């Protein structure tokens, strides 16, 4: 590690702490860019093996070769946090990246969603994920690639189907429900029951009866399968639990992406600006990296059909600090997620300044600008973020014969499922559920459609 960078890093940390950034210690590690690429593909430094990661890896490799993507750093929250820096970063880039990492580390320690998820995964997701990888490697040794893959195909296809409102370690459903209380006796009720011919009704209410499973619609499909699949072996359930734990870690990263990237960008910009110990030319080089990363996708005169979350988040944070001061900003980073952040703080003025517009792409490929309506803009930015980015598919019922009914809430999602993929996911699920299974949704004509697999 470059000693100049070590020196800068120490002084950047002191500067960050003087502004009130509060974080667990971070371990920095320089790694080869090939390894950075794998972290980006897997989402974690060491993660369970699955062929689908291989496909993503090749896409990433192709994009990398074509120069489309460059990764400077990846940070994992935890205590300690872990930051991986690409080995081919220049000193200037690494200076910026160090400041950026401190912003992420502060966010991860203080944001309520992150806090909640970190408490549940024990502040050590990197180690946990590596343990899962080992556990699954051992399962491959013992039960064979095909059997393990069959479980992972199903579990990973449901990766987004957790209920982040529930705890990671959840109790099973109650086994019995109390019988409903008898209706309160009223004069009328009594006379009604004593009408001629109804005397033989003997009320011997069951004290309690077996509770339906699930008692209400269940969002956490990974949990439901891990706990209630009729024929899974224990090691197979453990794989579902491992995937679910990692999903609990990924959830806040997904739910706070705009805020989190914006916050880290805000802080690297600010810390560098105030780092008077940096030589002028190094500051300028670092600044150039900043403007490469945090910039709108559109060049000067053109329009881009996407927004850069770094740029969007960065701009919103700048305006918050300007309007409401740093204390309020710290409070927002602790309490908000992307939904409240964008709805409350992407103001009409800011949207205009950023030249945001809403567009519509029709089936013929044509793209038309719709409007600048601020409410619609916010909702369109947030639309892909609902429900961990997945359709709302809930488990409704497990029958006595073990057959499972899944229901897609097409009303909330606005349209039906992609049936081809639903069929294939059901194939995966059927191999682990091993009893009849069906999924209700609607087709393109809006008619009810059930995809099912018999026993």
């Amino acid at each position: 590690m470059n000693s100049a960078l070590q020196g800068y890093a120490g002084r950047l940390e002191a500067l960050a702490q003087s502004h009130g950034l509060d974080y667990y210690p971070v371990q920095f590690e320089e790694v080869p860019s090939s390894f950075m690429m794998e972290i980006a593909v897997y989402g974690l430094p060491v993660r369970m093996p699955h062929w689908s990661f291989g496909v993503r890896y090749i896409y990433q490799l192709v994009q990398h070769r074509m120069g489309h993507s460059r990764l400077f750093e990846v940070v994992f929250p935890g205590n300690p946090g872990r930051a991986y820096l690409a080995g081919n970063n220049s000193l200037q880039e690494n200076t910026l990246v160090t400041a950026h990492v401190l912003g992420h580390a502060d966010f991860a320690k203080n944001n309520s969603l992150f806090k909640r998820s970190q408490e549940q995964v024990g502040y050590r997701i990197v180690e946990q994920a590596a343990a899962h990888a080992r556990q699954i490697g051992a399962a491959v040794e013992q039960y064979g690639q095909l059997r393990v893959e069959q479980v992972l195909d199903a579990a990973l296809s449901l990766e987004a189907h957790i209920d982040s409102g529930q705890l990671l370690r959840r109790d099973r459903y109650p086994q019995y429900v109390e019988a409903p209380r008898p209706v309160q006796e009223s004069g009328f009720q009594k006379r009604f029951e004593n009408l001629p011919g109804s005397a033989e009704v003997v009320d011997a209410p069951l004290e309690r009866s077996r509770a339906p499973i699930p008692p209400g619609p269940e969002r956490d499909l990974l949990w439901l399968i891990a706990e209630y699949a009729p024929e899974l072996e224990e090691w197979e359930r453990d794989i579902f639990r491992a995937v679910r734990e990692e999903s609990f870690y990924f959830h806040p990263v997904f739910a706070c992406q705009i805020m989190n990237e914006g916050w880290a960008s805000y802080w690297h910009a600010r810390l560098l600006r105030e780092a008077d110990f940096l030589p002028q030319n190094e500051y300028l080089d670092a600044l150039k990296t900043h403007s490469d990363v945090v910039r709108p996708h559109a060049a000067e005169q053109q329009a881009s059909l996407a927004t850069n979350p770094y740029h969007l988040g960065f701009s919103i944070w700048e305006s918050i600090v300007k309007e409401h001061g740093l204390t309020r900003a710290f409070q927002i980073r602790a309490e908000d997620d992307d939904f409240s952040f964008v709805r409350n703080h992407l103001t009409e003025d800011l949207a205009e300044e950023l030249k945001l517009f809403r567009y519509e792409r029709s089936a013929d490929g044509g793209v038309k600008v719709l409007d600048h309506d601020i409410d619609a803009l916010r909702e369109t930015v947030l639309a892909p973020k609902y429900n961990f980015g997945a359709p709302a598919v809930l488990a409704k019922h497990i029958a006595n014969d073990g057959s499972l009914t899944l229901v897609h809430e097409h009303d909330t999602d606005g349209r039906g499922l992609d049936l081809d993929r639903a069929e294939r996911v059901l194939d995966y699920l059927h191999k682990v559920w091993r009893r009849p299974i069906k999924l209700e949704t609607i087709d393109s004509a809006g008619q009810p459609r059930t995809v099912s697999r018999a026993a």
Partner: protein
Amino acid sequence: MAGSSGFVDPSGSGRQWYDLFSRGARDWLRHNDKVRAAVRDKLPELIAGSELLPSADRTVQVPVRFLEHARLRLRDAEQSEGVGQGAGKPGDQLVQPSDGATSKGAGGNEEGGYQFILELKIDDIVDWLWEELKLPNLKVKSGAVQYDDYTREGWSRRGVRSRLDRRRSLKEAIKRRAVQDEGAAFTNDDLRYRQLAMRRRPATEAVVYFAMDVSSSMTENDRKLAKTFFFWVVQGLRRQYTHLEAVFVAHTVEAWEFAETEFFQVSGSGGTVASTAFKKVLDIAMDRYDPGRFNTYVFYASDGANFHNDREAAQAALMELGSLANYVGYVETASMAQQPLQSETALLFEHLEAATHAAGRHALSSPESVWDAIRAFFSKGAEVEV
């Protein structure tokens, strides 16, 4: 408040674990195995496809798509909305609609772009296809030559590297280390090499005649089916049997013998007189491959439209052939015919079968049926009868 953060110095401890292997590459290889397996399962349908014509280096290239790990997701919307950034007034058309038919629709094509070419070795394909297939009714011919051949027999402490038996060597190492306190992982004495020994084996010599009708009634498609059938049969037999003679005959109103390479290029015109081919095969058999010494196989491909006035001559020649041959197979390229195996030629073979000669018929109506035909002919009577 923050504790001390720090840099981990990777250079201090030598190579890092992540240099040792790439997990991305490992999972990519697993993906490729799955693709290969999928291709393998579909090979019967693929082997006759036009994209599967073998190239000079004995490989075939199959274009395949990446496998997609399916997730639940919403149907593509008719219209999708997004937020863009930059100059744009309401009503501006940023992208012109394309000509409709070729459009992929809104969204949903994020990972569909790449294809890759899977290169399969012909030898591998043949291995897969011919795993359980054998020449039917193969016999050890009396008075046949005995062949000297290498067989594997025992192990030696010396040998060339390619014959190193890792498993056996490892066993030796484990045995040695069990009695040593601090033994080295491997020593030269642990290494075991497979030994080959020259042994005399009874020969099962075989000759296979491939006869094809190339008259004008055979359409381009018919010829392609017939040649595909012959190609994979030749490849398979060559792989399975080291001592195998193959003879190629094509006929219209007369018959010629061809070299293998020419045979797959040959095309002709004129009428169909099947007896010429059968007689040609008989001549060659008498001349060069004595059926008393050689297991004799005949495979004949035709569209079934033989001249009526050739019926008796063809039947007689075929019966004679049947009495000499271990097996006679007939494939009818019925890509155009309404009723496969009801033709003039099929009738000849029906009589041959009725005369209790080992014979079989199969229709070649589509590329997929090439494989069915191969399986039908080569999965029966695999044992060597002495």
